[in-house]
């Protein structure tokens, strides 16, 4: 992994302090006020939280979050005890296609609270944690949109992206490439580390999935003593 120079360091601590000032009173302000680890914190000392969302579709501008799973971990251990799971009732009607993917039924969703009602709790659970996701673009954008809609202020958080880590780990310069590039799908990445096959598309299982993948990646590619700033996005 490439190491950054001092100037490149992304210091989430400083940014959190700024946003804590600006953000309107409420859960999001409290989230930023809680702060985040300093960029020179070792990876092994960083509290991590694997997160996965299930949504009604892939377009953050019109699709909605319908479930969210969280599971805490550090570089060695995943703790089921802190696992959390929410379902959220979408504002718009659910199309039948995505229902089959998620195995969540209309009835279950109809009885679930709205995202607005649970986002406070989610923010509370995420406070001070560096988030672990597989493919940061999706999770971050959906939560950003939700926060803009509900709080009228952006929601950013530091992320370890297992897909990005895998991309760098499997990267080969073009003159060494042969055949197709390795798949970066969660399941394909897990198989590279001999992790078992899981049923995909349950937010909590997928969170567990990416948590396990990160541990495997740490065991193989990352340095637990290195600063978190080397890895977070």
């Amino acid at each position: 992994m490439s190491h950054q120079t001092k100037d490149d360091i992304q210091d989430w601590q400083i940014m959190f302090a700024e946003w804590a000032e600006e953000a309107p009173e409420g859960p999001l302000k409290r989230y930023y006020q809680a702060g985040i680890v300093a960029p020179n914190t070792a990876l092994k000392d960083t509290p991590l939280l694997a997160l996965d969302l299930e949504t009604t579709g892939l377009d953050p501008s019109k699709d909605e979050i319908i479930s969210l799973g969280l599971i805490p971990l550090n570089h060695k251990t995943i703790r089921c005890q802190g696992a959390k799971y929410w379902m959220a009732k979408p504002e718009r009607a659910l199309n039948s296609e995505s229902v089959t993917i998620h195995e969540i039924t209309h009835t279950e969703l109809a009885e679930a609270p709205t995202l607005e009602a649970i986002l406070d709790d989610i923010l509370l659970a995420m406070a001070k944690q560096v988030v672990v996701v597989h493919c940061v673009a999706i999770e971050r954008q959906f939560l950003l949109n939700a926060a803009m809609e509900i709080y009228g202020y952006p929601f950013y958080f530091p992320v370890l992206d297992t897909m990005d880590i895998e991309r760098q780990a499997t990267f080969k310069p073009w003159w060494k490439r042969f055949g197709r590039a390795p798949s970066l799908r969660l399941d394909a990445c897990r198989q590279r580390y001999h992790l078992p096959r899981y049923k995909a598309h349950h937010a909590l299982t997928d969170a567990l999935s990416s948590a396990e993948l990160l541990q495997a990646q740490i065991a193989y590619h990352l340095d637990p003593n290195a600063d978190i700033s080397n890895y977070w996005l």
Partner: protein
Amino acid sequence: MDVELTEILEALCQHAPFNEIAEDPQLNDMSKEIEVQYVRAGEWVIAPSTLNNTLYFIRSGAIEVLNKEEKLIRRMNEGELFGYASLLRGGNSSQSMRTIEDSLLYCIPARWFRKLYEENDNFSDFFELTREARLRTAMVSQSSDVSLMTCPVVSLLRRPPISTPMDSNIRLAAQIMSENRISSLLITDKNELIGIVTDQDLRTRAVANGLAYDTPVADIMTRDPIVMDSLDFASEAVLKMMSRNIHHIPIMKAGRPIGVINLGDIVQKESHGSVYLISDILKQNDIQGLQAISHKMTHTFNQLVVADANTQMIGNAMSHIGITFVKRLLQLAEEKFGPAPVPYCFITLGSQAREEQTIKTDQDNAMILSDEYDEQQHGEYFNKLSDWVCHNLDLCGYALCTGDIMASNPRWRQPLKVWKENFSDWIKKPKAETLLHLSIFFDLRGIYGDNALAKQLNQHIRQEAKQHPRFLSHMARNTSQRKPPLGFFRQFVLDGEGKQSRTFNLKERGISPIIDIVRVHALACGSDRLNTLERLKDIEAAGLLPAGRAKDLALALEMIGLVRIRSQKDQIEAGEEPTNHVNPENLSSFEKRHLRDAFQIVARQQEFIKFRYA
């Protein structure tokens, strides 16, 4: 909202003991406290001399267990638990655990282990069963309740016994039998059982000989018939019928007959024809007839396997069928070449002598001649006789012995005194190399002719062997020649599934080592038994092995033997030649686990015996 980690819970519940306690609501609570760890290959999970406070479940990957000397004890893979032994001892671990593959482990806190252990019997049972006990339980659960193996003969009785006093005449006897539609009649003297008369007796001893109707039945009855106790297993009745070629056995309770079982009762219960096969063999008058019967052997074998017979019973049936072939061939040979000029005893060696023969076997036999034998005078007769018998045995499916251990080889056709000298020589001046090839001579059974010759030779062997510790120590060392394929299981773990089509030889690496071990102990305690299980009883009684070890060996033999006969049955059904090889890919996980346990018992006993007779 209730958080349920379905993936973890489901993985646990696919394996023992969690599958047994899947309904326990505590399991869900426990799963919430599980920690998951990814450990790369080659790292310690429980390092040597550390305290352990976790029960580990292998979600994927593989682990090796090492003892204090860092010697490999066993390997574990997906779905297995470890760490419980130290939890039961308060955390002190005598074994250490290291990953041999990248592994995903579920760490269950010790307090959950203790809680379930105390509150759920199904859970604690799993951990209390030792390896041997696990094997035992498995063997019991394998045989179905209704099979011949587990049902006592009394359950086959259909009516009270019918008898007549010994002074009744044969006409009355025949009337009683036809009125009652029975094929045998018990004969009593003052209400004591003294004999039995069968349909066949009336035919061959009375009618054929033109006896008068008023002849007393006592004249044609079989005196002191073979009887069995009401609680003996039906399987033993089958064996008795086969070895004695009889079709009726009175069943006794407290010294009084309570009924008679006949072959029909047994055949009705379990439709296998091994008993019929034996009488069929004895009825054949030419080689063609015997050959035709030999083709039915595989069918009989398969029927026995399907009928849940254990290896002991199948070995017994196959051996007695084989012995009957030899007997009939010798009878025919004596008709052809005339009666023997001096007494002789035809002996069988190895598995047939131990009554442990399986479907595919070479002939191993020899001949003891009376000491009156004179090469010049009698040599040619016995040469022709043995050649003819061995050649025709080959035609009946008992292939010629590749090591030429056959009666047709003059070296193995000797007067008793020469045999005794041979054995004395082997025993007094033991050479490990030589003994390796001779071990089957220490399983020796007279099957035709003057069996007293075989008896005398066996007595001689027993006396000599017991007195020569160097002989025993050589034999003991030879038992470790062939190691059980424990390394193979490692390979299996390492390579994962589907990649290899390797096989291993169950006979060479499991069955023969057990037989060899038991033979040495049997010789050491002067047992006159040949059958391995019977030898083990003598060995146990003599206190040669630590308590329970004889039983372990018997179980291991049964387990490995069972896998072998089942695999041979499958091979026969697939139209292949039955072999002693199994392909691990075709084994169920039940078989794999218990085979491994069995092989471990063998490995341990191989270690033990070297010290025992060192």
